[in-house]
């Protein structure tokens, strides 16, 4: 169980690693004036996100739970043996190694369970679900709500950021590449910096949409 004490130790470890990283990479993204708690929080969020993506890419149906399980386990190990904080200078690698074990355990547990139909891709569904029609209709309705939410989220972005997203994702293949090149020139950014900026804005939109949609879904329930 993750207690406030073990969590505080975990954050401290992340913060120390972050500081070391910043010394070796002075151009790193976080501002030097950012408070320590916030820095540690950012590092924690980043690790958690990587864990969620790792488990999702490995086709785990419960990536959030497995990410939290990994974090709890790492925090527990640090609490039990504080020397780890010194012997393991790279928390990210330590998290990755722990995540691999959590994943293997998940696979072992799954072997003893049946396969959840919802986890299968459409091409492997054994038969047509009698509720398919109702589900499709619900999905169409949900898409409408998603669009409304995204329109709301759009208003939470600055006009410049929304303009950037529009220009960045406009067009197909060659046209898209050309658009991005022009956009980078216009904003005086390197192509890579533009990609990262667009990705961050997109992520904010995605988070906002998920919050809005889940909030709306709860209020409708």
């Amino acid at each position, binding site marked *: 169980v993750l207690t406030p004490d073990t969590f505080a130790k975990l954050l401290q470890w992340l913060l120390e690693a972050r500081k070391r990283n910043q010394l070796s990479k002075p151009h*790193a993204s976080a501002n030097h004036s950012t408070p320590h708690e916030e820095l540690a929080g950012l590092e924690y969020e980043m*690790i958690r996100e*990587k864990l*969620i*993506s*790792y488990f*999702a*890419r490995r*086709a*785990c*149906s419960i*990536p*959030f739970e497995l990410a939290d399980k990994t974090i709890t386990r790492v925090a527990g190990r640090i609490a039990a043996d504080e020397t780890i904080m010194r012997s393991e200078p*790279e928390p*990210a*690698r330590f*998290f*990755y190694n722990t995540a691999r074990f959590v994943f293997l355990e998940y696979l072992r547990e799954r072997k003893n369970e049946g396969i959840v139909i*919802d*986890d*299968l*891709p*459409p*091409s*492997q569904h054994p038969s047509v679900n009698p509720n398919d*029609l109702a589900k499709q*209709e619900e999905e*169409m*309705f949900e*898409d*409408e*709500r*998603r*669009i*409304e939410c*995204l*329109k709301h989220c*759009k208003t939470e972005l600055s006009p410049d950021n929304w*303009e950037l*997203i*529009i*220009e960045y*994702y*406009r067009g*197909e*293949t060659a046209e898209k590449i050309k658009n991005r090149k022009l956009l980078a020139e216009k904003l005086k950014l390197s192509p890579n910096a533009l*990609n*990262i900026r*667009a*990705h961050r804005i*997109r992520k904010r*939109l*995605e988070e906002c*949409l*998920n919050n809005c949609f889940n909030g709306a879904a709860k209020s409708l329930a």
Partner: protein
Amino acid sequence: VSNNATNEKQIVRYLLGQAPPAESERLDELCFIDEDFSAQLQISEDDLIDAYARGKLGGDERNQFERKYLAVPYLRERVRFAKVLSDLIKAEKPKPTSWAEKFLRYFSWAEISFRPLLTTAAAAFLLGIASLSTYTILRDQDHAKVAEAPIAPTPTPDHSPVTSPSVNVAPQAATPPAVFKSNPAVFVLSAGTRDSATSRSFVVPRKIEKVIFRLNLNEVKYARYRVVLKTRDEIPVWTSGEIAPITGKLGGTLNVTIPADKLAPRTYIITLTGLNTGPIPTEATIDEYSCRIIK
């Protein structure tokens, strides 16, 4: 560039689960310990999901993508977000190129010494452009009226009843397919046409992406409306969000945009509900329209 392209291919292979196990593990680890790679991977993943959402993945890649991304609820949500974002971006009109801005930027080297002269020249130039634009807009509007006529039939006035079934066929041969792809088909429905005897038939060309039903209202009583598209057996197929009406001299109009792929060749009933958003929100079914889709 070729190195980047190789990396990109490698990343896509990894994301689709097609990388050999050893490479897959190595990249898994890199995601955690290498910030640059992690950022590059996230960007490539955004692009991959977008490509799928826009229907640009084909064959094996598409199958592999579905097997990986549609099987996990968390990833499925990301795909749905990409679809919604892509729709919203498509709906945004491209920003018009500012000739004045280009003109001024081009001459910016002389900004101090020639500023008064440049200002006068720019003003004259802009005036010329404005006159030309006005002329072009007026001319295009005239052309557009002629071009749109077969796709968007003239609205039937509310007081003139539709007496017989009619077929609205968009002229596929006369218009290049690219126009159909980007332009929606517009169909007009008069109020109270549920009776199958007065049901209208509309042909939806294959390459059309969106269909706009222009519903005529006898009177506008509500600030917002909702539309439900149902089969003749009353099974709902599609529900709109809240739509604001456009008030006119003969009542009002409601533009309802429906993705063309939601429409199958069959008869539909369109139920119109008025939404009262006062202190006590209420809603009431106001009217029903009927039409037959031909594809």
